[in-house]
């Protein structure tokens, strides 16, 4: 094939693996035929359509809402306002951070795009037309847009709905040992500090958020087809919020057109559609448009960070301290484990062996859309990795050290695992130096540096950027981690039918990760049942066990572990049944993939399929052993898992225009045991494109009045095939010691790890210590010219 090459060559065609290995996806035949089942594909008889009226102001008092004209529209069936919802006790809903959020505004609007009214009509066009007929009288109030001004004494109070509130402060949180860290800094040879902003970005899945709500008037059962990454958590929340009995709620998330954290939360539109269905007695579909998605649903990042790094004169990193101002928007709706208001940001010590570390995070309200934890961020590990990997490059610049050598010198050594970092994490396993060396070898690092020197001599700007990241994923141990009181453990059920075919029911929710394939492979690996004989059921709360869903790369670390455990339970039961079949003690049997056989007599054995049939037959079973072949489990992870990787980015910068061309990107990932390398590579590819996008293009910005300037794909720029290179991948394998199959999760590694590599490369090219993302041509030009604005 032409110039499309990866460093790791594609393997020769091989037999379909019974277990782990490259396996084409079971999902694909329906997708390539256009037969996916996305929410907007749902058509029900008599279905109505909803549309949301949104606030044009960032901050304003609502004086009146007149819905007369909208209600008079011949195709309109209902107009719902905050007043309607107040009557039902639904005007406000709890957020995933124990705050409240307006479903439809009653007193004030607090960000541009906030939900004000909801129209239900016979068709999509009529609903949109009628939204335009609603007359809202606003009294504009001064908005709080700059988070750095949010705590100033004269700043307007955004959340005056909360009794006694006098400011915009949400929380202060810290991790690490402040005194110990300050002491190390006081004695260090070198201290480098740097302000940086991880700007507000948006996950922007190509499918926007939406739902179809159908409240059966007779039996009172609510079925909600919804773009949700966490169907079970949503069901429980609807029960808690709306007072609906939980057994009368069914959440279905069939196929989801990308999530990336955007589809974790419950949005007002979903609640309005449910109310719309209750009010009209008909199914109601609501699907937001792209502007609504970008302007109102969960954004990501918006962390103003000040990092400091202390080191010896010869480049031994001693300590890191960080102060963060976190912009959470108008409602604190970030999705993260309750104990961690800054997510897992405190893994900012990264991959380095430090003597001390400390961080302080302050969260504030602003008149912007709520959110903050999204976009494949692993609960803010993105921000943490960006901070430390930028700081290491700043230190390298200060010391005149090579960034690769400086990293190599400070990486946690393999013999230090399990490694206790200074902010409370226990890293499970890793071989960091081997991983970095491998990336440098694939890149031809030393040769690249020589090429760079030659080009510099000719006035050409070439940059080489590195990052080495450690993730913490798979939330999480129940005693430490819950969301709104729901422990982060996940269930799994496995049933082997009489003919040896199986169905596994999982609690997590694929958004393109290929769960129907990889979970079948886990069962296949453990039981020897071919993956094509294993049906994976997901995305329907009536059909699957409880669990908290897919985000924070938790599917494989938590639910994948549950699948392995449940398969082992079935295998143990199969052993007893095989013993009865062979008239030997189960202890005398040995397992090989797919069958139990008599130790020392391999010819004497029973396949899992034979055992399944016998389990459902008339075979006399030992006392206390029930028939059939099935098991259930709930997996409570003992620790998180710690995927890691070394990334190298090579860029060329046009000195005249500041345009950055990403020429090469080398990614060596270690996610422990690899279930399906094809899918892993796909996950990495997608995350790398995210990183290039965030580093160079993506920004949700506002003007001083709080108008969102990034409300369409004409303004919120995402990378196309022309902005990204042919990725070059490698991998190492360091299994997790505490995960049943040693797997660590891969879904977010590349999104977390790649942005600093790109930024470091650009800054390396132009010889500037720091500039904030996105490094658009204008910003690069400005950075190259000492802050002078680029000519228009």
């Amino acid at each position, binding site marked *: 094939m032409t110039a499309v090459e990866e460093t790791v060559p594609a393997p020769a065609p091989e037999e379909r693996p019974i277990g782990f290995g490259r396996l084409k996806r079971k999902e694909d035949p*329906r*997708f390539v035929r256009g037969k996916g089942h996305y929410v907007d594909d749902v058509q029900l008889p008599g279905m109505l359509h909803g549309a949301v009226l949104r606030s044009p102001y960032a901050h304003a008092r609502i004086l009146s809402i007149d819905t007369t004209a909208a209600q008079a529209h011949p195709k309109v069936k209902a107009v719902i306002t905050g007043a309607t919802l107040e009557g039902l006790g639904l005007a406000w809903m709890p957020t995933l951070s124990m705050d409240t959020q307006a479903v439809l505004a009653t007193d004030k609007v607090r960000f541009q795009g906030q939900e004000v009214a909801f129209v239900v009509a016979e068709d999509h066009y009529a609903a949109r037309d009628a939204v335009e007929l609603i007359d809202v009288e606003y009294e504009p109030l001064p908005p709080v847009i700059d988070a750095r001004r949010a705590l100033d004494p004269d700043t307007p109070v955004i959340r005056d709905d909360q009794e006694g509130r006098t400011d915009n402060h949400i929380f202060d949180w810290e991790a690490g040992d402040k005194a110990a860290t300050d002491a190390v800094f006081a004695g260090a040879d070198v201290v480098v500090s740097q302000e940086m902003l991880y700007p507000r970005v948006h996950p922007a899945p190509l499918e926007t958020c939406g739902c179809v709500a159908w409240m059966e008037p007779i039996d009172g059962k609510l079925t909600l087809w919804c773009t949700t990454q966490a169907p079970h958590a949503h069901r429980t929340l609807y029960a808690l919020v709306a007072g609906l009995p939980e057994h009368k709620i069914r959440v279905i998330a069939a196929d989801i057109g990308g999530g990336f954290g955007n589809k974790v939360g419950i949005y007002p539109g979903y609640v309005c559609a449910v109310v719309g269905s209750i009010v009209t007695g008909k199914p109601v579909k609501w699907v937001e448009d792209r502007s609504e998605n970008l302007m109102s649903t969960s954004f990501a990042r918006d962390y103003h960070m000040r990092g400091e790094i202390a080191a010896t004169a010869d480049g031994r990193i001693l300590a890191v301290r960080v102060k963060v101002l976190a912009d959470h928007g108008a409602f604190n709706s970030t999705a993260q484990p309750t104990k961690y208001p800054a997510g897992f940001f405190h893994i900012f010590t990264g991959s380095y062996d430090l003597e001390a570390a400390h961080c302080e995070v302050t969260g504030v309200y602003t008149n912007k859309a709520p959110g903050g934890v999204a976009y494949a961020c692993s609960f803010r590990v993105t921000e943490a990795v960006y901070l430390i990997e930028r700081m290491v490059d700043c230190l390298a610049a200060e010391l005149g050290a090579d960034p690769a050598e400086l990293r190599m010198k400070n990486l946690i050594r393999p013999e230090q695992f399990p490694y206790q970092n200074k902010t409370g994490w226990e890293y499970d396993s890793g071989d960091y130096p081997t991983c970095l060396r491998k990336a440098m070898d694939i890149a031809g690092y030393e040769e690249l540096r020589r090429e760079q020197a030659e080009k510099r001599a000719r006035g050409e700007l070439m940059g080489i950027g590195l990052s080495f990241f450690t993730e913490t994923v798979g939330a999480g141990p129940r005693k430490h981690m819950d969301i709104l009181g729901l422990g982060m453990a996940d269930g799994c059920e496995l049933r082997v039918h009489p003919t040896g075919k199986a169905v596994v029911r999982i609690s997590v929710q694929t958004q393109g990760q290929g769960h129907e394939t990889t979970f079948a492979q886990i069962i296949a690996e453990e039981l020897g049942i071919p993956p094509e004989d294993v049906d994976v059921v997901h995305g329907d709360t009536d059909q699957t066990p409880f669990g908290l869903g897919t985000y924070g790369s938790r599917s494989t670390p938590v639910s994948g572990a549950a699948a392995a455990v449940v398969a082992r339970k079935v295998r143990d039961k199969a052993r007893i049944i095989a013993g009865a079949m062979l008239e030997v003690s189960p202890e005398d049997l040995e397992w090989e993939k797919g069958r139990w056989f008599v130790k020392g007599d391999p010819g004497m054995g029973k396949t899992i399929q034979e055992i399944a049939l016998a389990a459902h037959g008339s075979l006399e079973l030992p006392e206390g052993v029930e028939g059939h072949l099935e098991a259930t489990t709930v997996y409570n992870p003992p620790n998180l898992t710690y995927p890691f990787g070394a990334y190298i980015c090579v860029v060329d910068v046009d000195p005249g225009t500041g345009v950055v061309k990403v020429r090469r990107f080398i990614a060596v990932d270690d996610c422990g045991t690899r279930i399906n390398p094809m899918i892993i590579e796909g996950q990495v590819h997608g995350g790398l494109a995210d990183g290039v996008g965030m580093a160079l293009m993506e920004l949700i910005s506002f003007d001083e009045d709080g108008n969102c300037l990034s409300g369409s794909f004409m303004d919120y720029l995402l990378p196309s095939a022309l902005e990204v290179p042919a990725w070059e991948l490698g991998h190492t394998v360091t299994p997790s010691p505490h995960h049943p199959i040693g797997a660590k999760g891969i879904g977010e590694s590349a999104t977390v790890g790649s942005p600093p590599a790109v930024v470091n490369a650009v800054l390396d090219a132009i010889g500037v210590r720091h500039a904030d993302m996105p490094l658009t041509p204008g910003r690069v030009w400005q950075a190259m010219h000492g802050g002078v604005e680029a000519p228009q």
Partner: protein
Amino acid sequence: MRVTITVNGEERVGEVEARHLLVRFLRDDLGLTGTHWGCDTSNCGTCVVLLDGEPVKSCTVLAAMASGHAVRTVEGLEGAAGLDPVQQGFIEEHGLQCGFCTPGMMLTARALLDKNPDPSEQEIREAISGQLCRCTGYLNIVRAVRWAAEHPAVGAVDANVTAGSTP
């Protein structure tokens, strides 16, 4: 108003509002939900269909504008002999994850290969550059199209639905 559109080789007639978009006509009126919708501003390309063999963004084409023309959607890619090589290529090379951009990507690829049976990596990237994918980072889409170029005999392409304009 009345529109008559040849969709995947079959004449389809509809009574539509003048503002009715082609993407909604295909999805809501004909039930061809393989054509997706993602932005309304012609930026994302999940709604790409072939109009007289050319890729167009059906979110910015009125159904009325397509009247009298031939439209091909993802549902019309598979022929009597099986999947189009492009469809098979996307499976072989893991060119899709969530599947949302896939129909549009495949139709653009089909149009490219009809004109240029042996495109380079750069030509493929340029051809799909008006469309977004948030999952794959594009490399496997490029490989999928190359796979299709290298396996033109797989499946069957029905000339009737790829042909140019109808009267």
